[in-house]
């Protein structure tokens, strides 16, 4: 009996133990499961937190994309004249894309068309107005207009301007226009030469020339009331009225002069900036800006120069010899620069000499 009872009692004790554990698990589960969801959300929050801490992504990278720099152990010579390695520590330089768009889009497109249209306009003007003659014919009497030094400065500047214009335009438009003609190696060789010439002629010849001309001629270029009249009368080109009064420089020449003093100087300064980045701590942005300013002012200068060269040569009879020989025909002087001629006459009379000289072999 006892033998039979013993396993029974043992089974009951086991049932109790099982029941106890079931209850324990149920109680524990009932308490722990709701807690579990807290743990779960807690872990999730911790994860989110850690992601945010170690990688504050969007804003972080947005700042980099917007040009936020950092630190770089690498120094290089990527930017001339640079002391600190701000250049290498930058990850994304956004200015480059703008520079590309301005240069390749705005400047290379509109600049090219602008110059082309100016040439066409001058051609049309020439076709319509033709060469402005010396009204009363050449007198054969000459008067000194530009002295030797003025002419020397003018021609040094003029020749360097032409070199600069051709080399500059070649670097801007050569890829589209000259590579198909010259081939890659041919154009590259030429462009290398053009760049070198441009960089040396600019500061060595052209800049001193422009500076001297400004100094030499500024006192003749002070604007006055007669300049306005000169413009309202179309400089004597339009209509057949009386030629407007003008001193040594007429209104148009004064515009050219002051254009050079402003836009021209901007072209020169920006050119220096690009030519000597090692003189100042030139930044990438500074170089981009300088190149844009240089290209725009250069193109404007060339456009106005077209007009200057036209009027000084084929546009007006008797103008060019003033700058080549230094002397102009008296009738030309009376027609284009009457005030100046009167002045020259009166001062030379005071000094008891004749300002004009007879030139033999010239039609009277």
């Amino acid at each position, binding site marked *: 009996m006892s033998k039979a009872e013993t396993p029974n009692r043992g089974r009951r004790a086991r049932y109790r133990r099982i029941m106890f554990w079931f209850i324990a698990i149920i109680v524990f589960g009932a308490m722990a499961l709701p807690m579990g969801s807290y743990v779960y959300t807690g872990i999730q929050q911790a994860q989110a937190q850690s992601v945010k801490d170690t990688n504050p992504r969007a804003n972080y990278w947005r700042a980099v994309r917007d040009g936020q720099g950092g*630190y770089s152990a690498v120094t290089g010579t990527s930017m001339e004249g640079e002391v600190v390695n701000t250049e290498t520590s930058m990850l994304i330089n956004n200015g480059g894309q703008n520079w*590309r768009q301005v240069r390749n889009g705005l400047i290379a497109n509109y600049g090219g068309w602008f110059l082309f249209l100016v040439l066409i306009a001058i051609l049309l003007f020439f076709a319509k107005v033709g060469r402005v003659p010396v009204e009363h014919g050449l007198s054969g009497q000459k008067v000194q207009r530009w002295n030797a030094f003025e002419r020397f400065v003018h021609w040094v500047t003029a020749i360097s301007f032409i070199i600069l214009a051709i080399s500059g335009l070649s670097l801007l438009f050569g890829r589209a226009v000259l590579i198909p003609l010259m081939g890659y190696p041919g154009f590259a060789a030429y462009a290398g030469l053009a760049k070198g010439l441009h960089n040396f002629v600019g*500061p060595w010849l052209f800049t001193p020339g422009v500076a001297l001309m400004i100094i030499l001629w500024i006192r003749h270029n002070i604007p006055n009331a007669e300049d306005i009249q000169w413009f309202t009368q179309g400089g004597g080109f339009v209509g057949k009225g009386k030629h407007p009064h003008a001193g040594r420089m007429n209104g148009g020449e004064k515009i050219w002069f002051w254009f050079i003093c402003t836009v021209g100087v901007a072209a020169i300064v920006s050119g220096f900036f690009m030519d000597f980045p090692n003189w100042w701590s030139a930044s990438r942005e500074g170089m981009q800006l300088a190149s844009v300013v240089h290209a725009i002012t250069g193109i404007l200068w060339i456009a106005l120069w077209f007009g200057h060269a036209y009027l000084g040569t084929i546009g007006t009879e008797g103008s060019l010899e003033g700058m080549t020989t230094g002397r102009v025909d008296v009738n030309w002087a009376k027609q284009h620069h009457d005030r100046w001629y009167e002045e020259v006459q009166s001062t030379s009379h005071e000094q008891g000499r004749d300002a004009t000289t007879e030139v033999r072999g010239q039609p009277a």
Partner: protein
Amino acid sequence: MARMKFLCDAERCIECNACVVACKNENSVPWGVNRRRVVVLDDGVPGEKSISVACMHCTDAPCAAVCPVDCFYTTEDGIVLHDKDLCIGCGYCFYACPFGAPQYPQKEAFGVRGKMDKCTFCAGGPPADNSDAEYKKYGRNRIAEGKLPLCAEFCSTKALLGGDGDMIADIYRKRVLKRGGRPQTWGWETAYKAS
């Protein structure tokens, strides 16, 4: 054809600069020029990130667009290379590049810079593959030997990946899935057009 790309995993880069050294040595990069560099953001601050950056070999490469002598070319693998025999050292590519890749060996008055130098993706340049001329001007042509850029091969944490864009994207995607969070294919938006 594979489209070669670089990708630097900012979660892995530890700024050891091994890629920089590897590149300089493998390609005999001119003095003063570093084709690759490592930039640390928030240096010394919790959450600092390092990124190794060189030429990204852009799809619509700004450098190539502005070069006045048109000396850049893109290889079949999408690698942007340039011809030093044509380069006139004007500096335009340097103005245009978003990543500061083009650099110059000289810095002198009158804009004398020498020939532009930049990362070649270890793919040399126009001269015959692994010829002396190519090595002297552009460095090693590992691509022609069927190898990948040494910087990426050298990376101890495999932060810097270089190779077929699809494979790199795949590796990176798996990493992102494993560690959670969103992908940061650094520089890809700037360099590559979606294809």
